[in-house]
Each structure stands twice: as structure tokens, then as C-alpha cells.
């Protein structure tokens, strides 16, 4: 027993000595140092991973938003009758998670805007598209003149392409100003005896000068000061700036979701930058060298100076009840260009009020021209001309249904959308451009 006791005591002593042996370095301090370093590295990796994960989540959400917007635009363009103008419709695209969208359809002059928005968790996204239903030009002749006792004469270097509807079903090649005809006209199989150009359809009544002010977008903001300087987004309410008297705007950038209304003559200098807006006035004037893209609606006249450029999609419209029996005139200056649509139409035409479109020398219209009065073509129209009569002024006097040194050419496919066929309202919308 004594031996065993001694043996146990010895073992405890040895263990105690073994455990209390001190090494030469600070292992504990080293271990703590390593632990701290590892914790820091772990934190760094975790935070980087969290940032990467957050970035991936944002990419996923943005993609979901973009896909929702794209799909909603496809639906709104293909099925516009699901969306009444002036109303916002909210719905789920596929009755699934994260696919809710809101669609608002509004008229924007000759065109329409489709505003689509979506929200996926805390990320929201919106897009506005400019579109129109008047995109089918397939049945529209290149030149359509109303039945008349005056046959259509072509003189000088006049070039006419495409199908035509003219009085008598043929062109008379003629010598004018001592210049023999050297141009080209379509072969007889391309020319039909004309029939009466129809009245503008009821759906265009919203474009009448007397109606258009009552068709302003809902929730617009009325402004009686200076117009907004810059591009006003279509995701914001429309800003309507009203001028009570004749007004000249000399500089600035008036663009986007804005409408300018003037109860008089509205004039713009070449220093004004205009894009996508609507202008409504008694008369509208543009100085020489003006450049912009806009839709103008006037009661009396729209006159441009020389060397002006109106980019696609632009429109000049005089469409009025004409109650005071006055004339309406749209004039595109020398060397000026317009891509879009020109409409000069009296609802109650009389012998005393002549609605007239004048396309000056070296002017060019990429698009369509509609007039139930006279159209004087001295330049180039790449598109369609629908007019009651054409008119030519020479030193010897005025010649009805006579074309001289001008051109009406068939548009290439890519340009065929520039002009709207106002006589054909399709059930589907076609995209014109994306708006900011």
C-alpha cells in the first residue's frame, strides 16, 4: 500500500512537472495573434462575398425589371385596346412572382405614348415608347389627286414613281417655260383613273385645332412662365406652357414632355433646341436654319424659313373647322427638310378659303403629305402626296394639277414608316422610338 501510495504521488508529481514545463517562446500570444488574423481574413472574405452577392442581386432585379418592361411594351403595342387612353392599368404579366407592371397610354399629337413601369423589391424601372397606329402605307398611292377637269401635267425634270391615282388615269407630258419634259412618269399600268379622296376619318377629330386642347394628357401641370429648360422626362407629368400673346422664343432647350400653347403667333429662332414636344398656336413660324423634332398644330399657318431641318418624327398639322372662313397655309422653306407627316385640311372647305401646302425649291419631305386644298411641290417628296389639286406658279400665272421640276419617289423600306397613313387606323401600334 505504501509503495502504491508513493507510486501515485510520483505520477502526480511528474504530470504536474510536465504540465508546468515552460517553452522558450510566447505560444499563447502567437495563438491569439493567429486567431485575430484569421478573424480579420474571415470578415474580409465575408464582406466581399456579401458585396458580390448584393451586386448579383441587383443585376437579377434589374434584369427582371427590364424583362417586365419589354414584355409589357410588346403587349401594349399588340393589344392597345386593353389600355384606354388616359388611364393607368396595373396587372401581373404571367400571374407569377415579381412580374407586376403598370401601363399608361396617352395620345401625343399624331402619335401615342406608352408609359410602362415596374417595381421588383426595392428596384423600380420605367420606359416610355412613342408609337402609332397609322403605319400601314401599303394601300396609299404615291400621288392621289381628286377628280378634276384638269388632267395632270408633268413638265421639266419631274420624276414620279409608284402607283398613282390622277384625273383621266394618265400624265400629260408637257413643255413648260420652254423646257421640254425630260423626267419620268409611271407606266400606264401603274396609273388609275382617280376617285374622290375621302374625308378624314372620325378618329382623327382629336387632331382638330378646336379639339386638341381638350385632349391634353391627364395630370398635366399648367405653367404661365417660361417653358422648362431641358428635356422633361415622360415619366413626369406633362408641362403645358401657355402664352396669351404673340411670342418669340429666342434661345433655350425646350424638349421632352412639354406642350407649348400660344393664343397668337408663336415664333422660334434658330438658337432654340426643340425635341419631341407639341406646339399649338394660331400661327407658328420658324426662323432660317432652325433644327428640331416636333409636332406643330396651327389654325392659320405654319411657315418655316430656309435651310430648316425637322427630324423624324415631326408633323405639321392644320386641321380646323375653319369657322371664320380663313385660309390655312403650310410652307416648307427653300433647302428645308422634314421627316414625318404634313396635314393641311379644312373641315368645311369653301371656294373662298384655300388650304395650301407649299414645298419650296430644294425642299425635301420624307413622309406623307395630305391636303384637301392645293399642294405646290417644288422639291422632293419621298413618300405619298394626297391632295385635292396640285398647283404651280410660273411667271405666266398659276397652273392647276401641273408638276414641274419636282419629284415624288417611292420610299425605301427603312423610310416607309416616316409618313403616317392617316386614312388607315390599324388595331396594333408600331414603335417609333424610345423616349426618355
Amino acid at each position, binding site marked *: 500500500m505504501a509503495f502504491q501510495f508513493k507510486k501515485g504521488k510520483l505520477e502526480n508529481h511528474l504530470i504536474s512537472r*510536465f*504540465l*508546468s*514545463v*515552460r*517553452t*522558450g*517562446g*510566447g*505560444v*499563447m500570444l*502567437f*495563438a*491569439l495573434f*493567429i*486567431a485575430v488574423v*484569421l*478573424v480579420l*481574413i*474571415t470578415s474580409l*472574405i*465575408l464582406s466581399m*462575398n*456579401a458585396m*458580390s*452577392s448584393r451586386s*448579383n*442581386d441587383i*443585376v*437579377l432585379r434589374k*434584369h427582371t425589371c427590364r*424583362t417586365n418592361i*419589354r*414584355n409589357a411594351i*410588346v*403587349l401594349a*403595342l*399588340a*393589344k392597345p385596346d*386593353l389600355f384606354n387612353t388616359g388611364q393607368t392599368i396595373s396587372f401581373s*404579366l*404571367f400571374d*407569377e412572382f415579381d*412580374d407586376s407592371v403598370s401601363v399608361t397610354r396617352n395620345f401625343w399629337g399624331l402619335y401615342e405614348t406608352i408609359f410602362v413601369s415596374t417595381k421588383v423589391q426595392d428596384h423600380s424601372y420605367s420606359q416610355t415608347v412613342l408609337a402609332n397606329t397609322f403605319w400601314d402605307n401599303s394601300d396609299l398611292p404615291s400621288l392621289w389627286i381628286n377628280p378634276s377637269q384638269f388632267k395632270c401635267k408633268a413638265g421639266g425634270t419631274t420624276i414620279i414613281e409608284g402607283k398613282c391615282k390622277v384625273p383621266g388615269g394618265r400624265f400629260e407630258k408637257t413643255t413648260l417655260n420652254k423646257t421640254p419634259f425630260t423626267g419620268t412618269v409611271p407606266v400606264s399600268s401603274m396609273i388609275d383613273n382617280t376617285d374622290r379622296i375621302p374625308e378624314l376619318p372620325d378618329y382623327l377629330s382629336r387632331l382638330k385645332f378646336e379639339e386638341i386642347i381638350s385632349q391634353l394628357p391627364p395630370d398635366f401641370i399648367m405653367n404661365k412662365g417660361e417653358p422648362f429648360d431641358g428635356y422633361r422626362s415622360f415619366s413626369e407629368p406633362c408641362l403645358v406652357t401657355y402664352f396669351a400673346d404673340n411670342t418669340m422664343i429666342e434661345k433655350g432647350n425646350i424638349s421632352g414632355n412639354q406642350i407649348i400653347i400660344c393664343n397668337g403667333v408663336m415664333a422660334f429662332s434658330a438658337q432654340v433646341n426643340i425635341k419631341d414636344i407639341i406646339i399649338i398656336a394660331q400661327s407658328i413660324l420658324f426662323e432660317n436654319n432652325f433644327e428640331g423634332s416636333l409636332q406643330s398644330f396651327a389654325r392659320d399657318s405654319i411657315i418655316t424659313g430656309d435651310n430648316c431641318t425637322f427630324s423624324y418624327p415631326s408633323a405639321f398639322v392644320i386641321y380646323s373647322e375653319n369657322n371664320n372662313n380663313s385660309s390655312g397655309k403650310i410652307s416648307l422653306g427653300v433647302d428645308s427638310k422634314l421627316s414625318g407627316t404634313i396635314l393641311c385640311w379644312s373641315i368645311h372647305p369653301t371656294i373662298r378659303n384655300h388650304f395650301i401646302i407649299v414645298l419650296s425649291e430644294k425642299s425635301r419631305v420624307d413622309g406623307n403629305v395630305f391636303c384637301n386644298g392645293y399642294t405646290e411641290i417644288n422639291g422632293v417628296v419621298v413618300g405619298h402626296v394626297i391632295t385635292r389639286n396640285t398647283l404651280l406658279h410660273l411667271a405666266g400665272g398659276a397652273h392647276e394639277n401641273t408638276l414641274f421640276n419636282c419629284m415624288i419617289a417611292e420610299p425605301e423600306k427603312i423610310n416607309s414608316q416616316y409618313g403616317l397613313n392617316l386614312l388607315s387606323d390599324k388595331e*396594333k401600334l408600331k414603335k417609333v422610338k424610345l423616349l426618355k
Partner: protein
Amino acid sequence: MTKVEGTTLIESLVATIIILSVVGISSIIISGSLRSHTSLPELQAISVSDSLCEQIIKEGAFSEREFSKNGLKYSVSFSTYSYSQSILKMNVVATNSLNQKVGSFNYLIPNY
């Protein structure tokens, strides 16, 4: 005053246990975090689905198909969209090698 010259064995053992614990816990946290948060396959699937949709619209080849790309399997199907007969609904479902759904994407295609 006693002067401490070094570390006892028991202190070394405790230090080793601390280091191993920290290393172990860090590894578990990092690997778990990586596994639970990574979205790379879904991003990959988005890119492939978007390109596929553009290609199908361009070529007008609206046929159902299945294919694999970068370890993900894609299944493409078409149906008429409920709101309009004139719109096709294209659905792309991406699955990984374990047959787990990585993503499902719907595209509307006008047929005019």
C-alpha cells in the same frame, strides 16, 4: 516577483484549440456563405436566355428545344399568351446538373 520565461504545455494546448476553432468556424462560415449567396448560374442563365430570345425572333424559328451550355440545361417552350392570341409566350427554364431549377424566364413575342 516571479519572472515568466515561457508558455506551459497546457497553455500551448489551449492556444492550439483556439486556432483550430477559429479556423474551423471561419471555414464553415465562408463555405456556407459562398454556397448560399452565389448567383452566378442564374446570371449565366439570364445571358443565355436573352441571347436565345433575340436569336429566335431574328430567325423566326419558334420550335421547342432543349440544350446544354456551360453545365446548365435549358428547356425552351412556346405557348399562346393569355391576354392576346397574337402574342407568343416563350418560356426558358434553366436547370443545373442536380436537376434543380436555376431560373425561369418568360418572353413575349409579337407575331406580326
